[in-house]
């Protein structure tokens, strides 16, 4: 059952005082834990938990013919399967619009930050390139799947290695110790939710249901400073320019908690 309207009002009233039901501050995440190498069959894989939310992501490599306009570039494909296992709200059948949207957000963060140097994934120009598949599976939805999914994806990519490639074909199941070519920017994805006049990150299920609008933003940090790589606003309530500006400010400040979890897991 969706959250009751009266409970929603209580969440709002409490937030107006800067407080949340579970004692967190508005910009505080639940504990984040990451396990890598969760599937021996994957080139790279990760299990991310944020509170009780759990998402698995895996990287598989394959080869294909490059796109005509980029004959030397490898390809990237991100999918998210919202398995009905993770929540009574996810239906059986073809991918829902939510799972497509989630995959698109994660895809753009990775693509636009050049996390993977696709130009270095050429096997033979115009004929054969590597393709990188990143597949995301939510196992338990306890709120904030988007951030957990994005984090699982970048950890899986960071830890991925090439399979053995011999005589023009992949020797599946045999891995080398060569990592994927990565660029200097790593996109850290955070979703900000608007409840009443307040902004929060990492909502619980109840807070997520009380959320009136949310904005997902991917930020990277390097010697050249911070960059924003992808943004997506959802739900049908508008946000003011001030609110969006405030989210940008929060994002470049608060992404460090995700960055730290990422770096600890991929050391």
């Amino acid at each position: 059952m969706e959250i009751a309207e009266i409970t929603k009002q209580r969440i709002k009233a409490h937030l107006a005082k800067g407080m949340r039901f579970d004692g967190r501050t508005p910009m505080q995440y639940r504990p984040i834990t990451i396990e890598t190498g969760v599937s021996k069959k994957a080139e790279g894989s990760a299990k991310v938990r944020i509170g009780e939310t759990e998402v698995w992501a895996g990287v598989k490599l394959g080869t294909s013919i490059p796109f005509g306009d980029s004959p030397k570039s490898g390809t990237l494909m991100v999918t998210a399967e919202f398995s009905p296992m993770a929540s009574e709200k996810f239906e059986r059948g073809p991918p829902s619009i939510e799972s497509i949207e989630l995959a698109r957000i994660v895809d753009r963060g990775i693509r636009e930050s050049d996390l993977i140097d696709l130009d270095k994934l050429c096997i033979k120009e115009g004929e054969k390139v590597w393709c990188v598949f990143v597949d995301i599976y939510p196992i338990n939805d306890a709120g904030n799947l988007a951030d957990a999914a994005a984090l699982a994806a970048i950890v899986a990519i960071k830890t991925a290695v090439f399979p053995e490639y011999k005589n023009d074909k992949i020797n599946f199941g045999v891995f080398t110790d060569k990592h994927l070519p990565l660029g200097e920017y790593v996109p850290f994805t955070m979703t900000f939710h608007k409840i009443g006049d307040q902004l929060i990150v990492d909502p619980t299920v109840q807070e997520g249901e009380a959320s009136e609008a949310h904005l997902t933003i991917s930020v990277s940090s390097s010697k050249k400073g911070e960059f924003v790589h992808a943004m997506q606003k959802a739900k049908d309530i508008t946000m003011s320019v001030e609110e969006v500006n405030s989210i940008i400010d929060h994002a470049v400040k608060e992404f460090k908690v995700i960055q730290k979890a990422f770096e600890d897991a991929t050391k």
Partner: protein
Amino acid sequence: MAYTKRFDGRKADQMREVEAKVGVVPRADGSAMFKFGDTIAIAAVYGPRHLHPQFLQDPQQGIIRCSYDMISFSVTERKRPGPARRSQEISDVTARSLEPVLLLSQFPNTVIDVFINIVQADAGTRCAGINAASLALAHAGIPMTDLVGAISVGSLGGSVVVDLTKEEEDYEEDGEKAATDIPMAFTLRDKKISLLQLDGKVKPEDLKKAIEAGRKASEAIYEIQKEALRGLK
């Protein structure tokens, strides 16, 4: 030449390391993980819940629906996400292997949904899935007369071995496939067969031996399932 020494050194009647855990998907009404060596299955149960469309409803009893799927990176060559004929068939046999123990008449017009994800595959995935599902159904508080345990037994070049690995499933003699995989499930207290599949080539006497080996292995699976549920309080 018979298959006398197993690739991983196990005895013929020895399962791989088995592990079970209940409650791995907190949002579901019941859930469990079951592991045979490198094969890992997660099952989550939702229900009994409202069933729509209405024409599927049975006014005399609830129905059980299973969805078995392998995640794309559970196997060495990426599996395309989404259902395929193989997973549909396995979903169906899984439901039929569990149905005999469920007291569905208590929930007319409803559905119990069981979702099984194979997160890492090294043969025996449907059996791991059935074991996880049996635990998840019990954990969800579904009325049942028994638990169900599944095991894959193989006949490899005339030798009967339990809990095959992928390498054993692909066993060849003289350049020919020489392994027959026989997945089976038992009601665990009652020791009745609720799933039995076979495709391959096996002598009738070996088949009988295989079923007996499966029945014996199911006793160990019973202990593991009981332990997993009792560990919860």
